[in-house]
């Protein structure tokens, strides 16, 4: 199956939508912190709150994590894969 992978940044995920983390483009320090909170490639994330401006809340591995929009923009996800 060769569906076109829709790769978007995490901040573009609407509330209620699900995504699978593909990659990180932030520095190693930040990526390390994200990894210790549950963000690793291949993990599923659910957007819990995203008003299109300001920080947002994602649920990853059963934990609700608040991220700044800048941080979320550097995490790339594939939309809609569960």
């Amino acid at each position: 199956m060769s569906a076109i992978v829709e790769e978007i940044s995490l901040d573009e995920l609407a509330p209620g939508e699900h995504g699978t983390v593909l990659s990180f483009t932030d520095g190693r320090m930040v990526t390390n912190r994200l990894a210790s909170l549950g963000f690793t490639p291949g993990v599923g994330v659910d957007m819990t709150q995203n008003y299109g401006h300001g920080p947002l809340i994602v649920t990853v591995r059963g934990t609700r994590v608040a991220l700044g929009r800048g941080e979320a923009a550097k995490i790339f996800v594939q939309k809609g894969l569960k």
Partner: protein
Amino acid sequence: MSDCHDTSVAVAPRPVSVGTKTPLIALAGQPNMGKSTLFNLLTGLNQHVGNWSGKTIDRREGIFLLDGQECNLVDLPGTYSLTANSPEEVIAREFILRESPDLVIAVISAANLERSLYLVSELVTLPAPLLVVLNMMDVAEQEGIRIEPEVLEAALGVPVIPMTATRASGAKDLLRVVGDMLAGRRVSMPHLPEIRTDHLDVLNEIMRHTLGYVPSPYPAEWTALKLLEGDAEMTRAMRAALPASNWEAINAVLIQHDDAFLAVASGRYEWIARMIRAAVVHPKVGQISLTERLDRWAAHPFWGLVILAGILGLVFWLTFTLGTPVQTWLATQMVSRLAGLTSAWLINAPSWLHDLLVGGIIGGVGSVTTFLPIMIIFFATFALLEDTGYMARAAYVMDNLMHLMGLHGKSFLPLFLGFGCNVPSIMGTRTIDSPKARLLTTLIAPLVPCTARMAVVAFLAPAFFGSNALYVSWGLVLLSLTLLVLSGTLLNQVIFQGQRSAFIMEMPLYHLPNARTIGLLVWQRTMSFVKKAGTTILAMAVIVWALSYFPNGELQTSFLVRFGHFVEPVGRLMGFDWRLTVALLTSFPAKENAVATLGVLFGSSPAGNLSQVLTASFSTASALSFQVVTMLFIPCMATVAAVRQETGSWRWTLFNVGMLLVISMGAGSAVYHLARFLGL
């Protein structure tokens, strides 16, 4: 267990011969797992708080009894992992490696097993016996999660004790197993996370180059793994320990595998997934949790701010209806009465001794301690908001506004506490995880107008401005806050080059506050302040008193007044005469002293009279400028002591004092000249 982990031999327990040495037990866990609750449950009041050496991070240590035998319990800082992302993480792992505790108790949450096992996946690789406390069984039950602790224990190879620390349930089992482990009757033989085969080759290659060079007490394989993870602290240590050629060889490998740290983290989560598949018989049911429902309001961009404003309003109301009257009562009844009694008692003593005790110590330290009730209200509010999980929501909704200053939401509540008193505010900066943001918040915190400064405003504004006092007061508060935002923005640009630490924050589940946790926190913060009042603040009070007393035993001809005359030219820039300058200088021990000094200098006239004398003596421009400067002037000595304690550096403390000196005098001169220009 994979055979590549021959280091697991080091996991073999070291039985403690009971009676010869006090066993040392470390408590580890991620934030929001109920680690403090468990620590308080075990140690009760047999605990004390200090600092980790050279760091302003709380070090809690306590004693508990196990079959009549004393055990030392050290509460390690709460960390998500053991990779050197923060000072807390370095402290936690260095303690385990260097102090070799007899047992490490890892606290995890049954309601959040997957995330909380991440730290355990790192702890199992360290050479210390491990015990896992599966806390928050009650929350897990509410959420429909069912876990079999025996299965988890078998999968981990580490004893697992189910508990609900808030209700003290499971404590007996815990103590029994701790006793068994210390006596060597029970051991931990953890099953370690595996490393992907391709990375295993890399790891072995790194270990070939580090062979014989890994400094004690670091295990060789652990060190190689940390290098692969890009751990800043271990990279630095090994670079220093290795010959250049070995380091270059390793560096080449690391550059080639610069994404290995994500593979290592993924490996840990795979290990966790195996544990969960085995032990969780019923996952979380899909119902909307209480946290989710509450967050629809508390974390909403608009309603969240409304709720926050409501809570803050309540705190102010409590301060003014409870804190301020008690403070006034303490000042007028206790401190004045104590001064009176001391005076009577020292009737035949030399007058300098009398003045030192009554004017210097009781007047200085005493008036600072009358603010304790207000501080306690703020300490308690802070502890309550943190313990319920609301603090993270306040930080979340305030993030946009704090952005302006290069800060994020976590700085908001500590700053807000400053309205009560700058001391709890600066002590509250400990909850900010980034050291830079913590420093920046500490530096601007003294610009928040505290109740003592508002008391000066409340006295002087009506005296100088009559019916316009209210507008002047609001103007002064607004000016302070504007300057706070401006100096925050400027400091961030100049000192931190506009960098802003990443905003990544767990939103913990809401839970009912635990009275013991809050009570102990308030008690410890209060004691910490009382200790400071007895040391740093006492010393400063004596110095300021000596300057205002010697050489002739009176203020009017003292060194302080001479200094006031000497710096009068500077004071004149702000429209001050020497008396206003001296009043300003004496506001250092306690802000309200400014009013008292004016009283002395104008001939100890009764308060009602003083306001008339003041209006007659100074132009509106001078009066305005004086109010601006007292509002923004160098913080009181209690605040300076707190800044010293929290920054851990006299240089930053002096910088802070200097910065406020420049801001207050700059603003004072500007206001004075503007007022003159407007013909006031």
